[in-house]
């Protein structure tokens, strides 16, 4: 029998109250739940758990070198991002390098090199969404390799570097300190 009380929330203020009710009732009633759904297997979770975090959590097995990445880039990336990572406007592919130090100036140019604060985001995004015409098709080795090549062209790692779970987790990006939390409301004309 379901004893759990769930109070639909109605906006942030009321919801905070609803939460208290829900938790205190749960505490009284014990750990009863509706119990719908099933327990996913480890394989089922692993199949979708593809994210990578800045502290290195989530990087998969595998590795790739700058030299290998050059090949991968030429065959899978250059058509949209340009031979020299300058971007191809007609294809909608963004520039990947350049613009370092430009953020906040009249010539602001946001690229992986100039703007992206974490190397993990590069691996994560390529794995989930690239290449555009065949998303999710690259092997982990290919993703490490092409990440290495992009980071090298961005003058962040050496030409002889190898990227893997350990080395990529230690890469520091030029704009790592470029972000601040949202301070809004920032225009104070309350009444």
């Amino acid at each position, binding site marked *: 029998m379901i004893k759990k009380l769930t109070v639909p*929330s109605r906006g*942030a203020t009321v919801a905070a109250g609803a939460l208290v009710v829900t938790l205190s009732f749960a505490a009284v009633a014990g750990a009863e739940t509706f119990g719908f759904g099933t327990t*996913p297997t480890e394989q089922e979770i692993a199949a*979708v758990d593809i994210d990578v975090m800045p502290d290195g959590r989530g990087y998969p097995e595998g590795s790739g070198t700058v030299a290998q990445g050059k090949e991968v880039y030429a065959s899978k990336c250059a058509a949209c991002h340009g031979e020299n990572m300058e971007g191809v406007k007609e294809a909608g592919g963004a520039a990947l390098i350049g613009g370092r130090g430009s953020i906040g*100036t009249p010539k*602001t140019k946001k690229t992986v090199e100039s703007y992206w604060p974490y190397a993990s985001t590069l691996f994560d995004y390529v794995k989930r969404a690239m290449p555009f015409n065949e998303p999710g098709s690259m092997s982990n080795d290919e993703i490490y390799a092409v990440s290495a090549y992009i980071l090298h062209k961005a003058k962040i790692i050496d030409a002889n570097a190898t990227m893997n779970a350990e080395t990529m987790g230690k890469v520091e990006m030029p704009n790592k300190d470029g972000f*601040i939390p949202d301070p809004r*409301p920032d225009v104070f*004309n309350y009444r």
Partner: protein
Amino acid sequence: MTKAKNPDLTYPDLSNYEIPEDKLAQIEGMRDAEKRALMARKAELEECECREGMFPNPMASRRSFFAGAAAAAAAAGSLPMVARAAAPPGAKEFEVPSDPTKVQGRLTNDDGGYGSRSQFEDEVRWRFPTKTKESSWTMTPLAAGMGMITPSGLHFERHHGGIPTINPASHSLIVHGMCDKPKKYSVADLKRFPSDSRINFIECSGNGLTEFKAPYLKTVQGTHGLTSTSEWTGVPLSTILDEVGVKPGAAWILAEGADAAVMTRSVPIDKAWSDAMIAYGQNGEALRPEQGYPIRLMLPGYEGNTHIKWLRRLEISDKPFQTREETSKYTDVVKDGKARQFSFTMEAKSVITFPSGEMKLPGPGFYEITGLAWSGRGRVKDVEVSTDGGKTWHLASLQGPILPICHTRFRFPWMWDGNPALIASRCIDETGYMQPTIASINEVRGVNGHPKFASIYHLNGIMAWAIGADGSVVNAVHKV
């Protein structure tokens, strides 16, 4: 009678501005989309007797003219009675009888049991002409909107990898990470939980990106069309969090979609516990595919991108995941060169939808000014309207029900004396926050480190329209 305004298809010259290339491309793209729509309307107006008045509807008049001519031809035996294919999107074309009281109408339920709109209604979303049609967006035709609900088929869109076709029978949501009992839910499982329905707006944080510095686009669809309101039905996320047993130390949840972009955003767990919802319903039926069918995340008041569509996974964690959409995109560079991140809340905003850009008032007299107001922080408390360029402000009446985090329709009766006028609205929400001028926003944030053009996201400043002595209405943003 006055002749309807011939759409002026010239736009401000941007060559004097040093605009970052990516931003320039966006502005030019938006301009081209609007231009195409105005050109199409102009072409129809030229062959139509409906040029007079403030709501030119060339489609209706032209269609009835052609339909009538075709019917007459058919009656004379010169043309077979065949249905024409040229109905607007969402409509079907039918013969128009000269007197509907003299012939039986269409057969009951002959539409297969699902209705469509009139063949004389042709409002559509515009697509922003990005380089690919998979990663693109469309804008809601706000000027034609009524009340506060956006028809599901006109809800604005933003896709990063196209619209996936998902069979709900094979779709599942996996919830895992820092919890006691990871779970896999079918769509049917989710529908077994106690449900909730809420009417909320969703606004893209890029809404208005062309207008930071100067008037640019001509219509309210262009300047404000990235916001829409629906009734959303689903299961509160707090219910699911109770089910899986969130572990101490959990602070963020990654939400992930099943589209080709495998779209991801990190959500603060406080938001997940408060009013977040996993929605499967929209305006009384299942979500539209372009709105996330079969399930999407709802985070009322947060920027649209966080409302992950085609939701397939929620991972509970202690830290944000720093995905591409919360670092490279949807961040605002402010004047010290730093970029604001996790700017979730869409702040109080309003816009007059009538009269608005490219309309034409036929002459002095009574008009009901109307528009929409909304706030990501709660209810709209007041809307004020100015008809003298912001010198004086007057309370508008608000159409109930006034719901939190929801479009609210406002109305203001106005006698226009025929002189040029500058009309504007401002929203005050229940926190007391008053919609600021764009100048005051740019003063605080800077303009992407640039004195002329600003950032791209989170513009909620006051919008204004200028009414000329001839009744024409043009974009006058920044004039108030």
